[in-house]
């Protein structure tokens, strides 16, 4: 698994842990693109919030699993 995939958990966790800031969307968009490939910004911004939350949860689970196996 590439190193970038391992860092997804950290990126998402950091983005969610921080208080809402204008760069939140940039960080979340970046984390999604690392996993899903290129996503045009407009398409990303138009994702329904529940879909975004579900996908984020899946990414977190995947990253947790990768981290667990790498220990």
């Amino acid at each position, binding site marked *: 698994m590439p190193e970038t995939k391992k860092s997804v958990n950290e990126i998402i966790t950091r983005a969610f842990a921080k*208080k809402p800031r204008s760069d*939140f969307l940039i960080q979340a968009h970046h984390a999604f693109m690392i996993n899903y490939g290129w996503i045009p910004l407009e398409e990303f911004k*138009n*994702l329904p*919030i*529940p879909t*975004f939350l*579900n996908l984020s949860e899946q990414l977190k689970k995947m990253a947790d699993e990768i981290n667990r196996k790498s220990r």
Partner: protein
Amino acid sequence: MDIEKLKSHLGKAREYKIGKDTFYFKPLTVEYLPEMFSIINKLSINTEAPLSNLDKESVSTLTNLVRVMIKKSYPNMERDYIEKLTKEGVSEEEAKREAQNTIDEFIFANFFPLVTALFEVNDLGAPKLETSKMSSLRAHMEQLKKAKEAKNA
């Protein structure tokens, strides 16, 4: 299993009853997430009385989020109403103002069911709205309404 729960996970509209009428509200999109989080953060500072954390700016943000939810759920509603009014001879500017005011009045009249729908449909959990704090929030909303009316006058 409630089918409405499934719909929310698909980003589809969910059914809400306000008074005798049924509405179908769609979730907001990711671009509104920072604003949603800013409201949730404020509501969670004091969980015993979450509404006491809301200042005028937060109420304004919350009102705007509800307005966006309504417009996303019923994208043609405003345009159709403006068309109807202009056919009746009302100027376009006046028709736009009338449509905007009607939506705003609906929000002011049904603020709490709409806020609950906003959090539920976006899968973010409804905040515990304490009834004793509603009056202060309503006062803020009235001020906002008066300010808007004064601006339109």
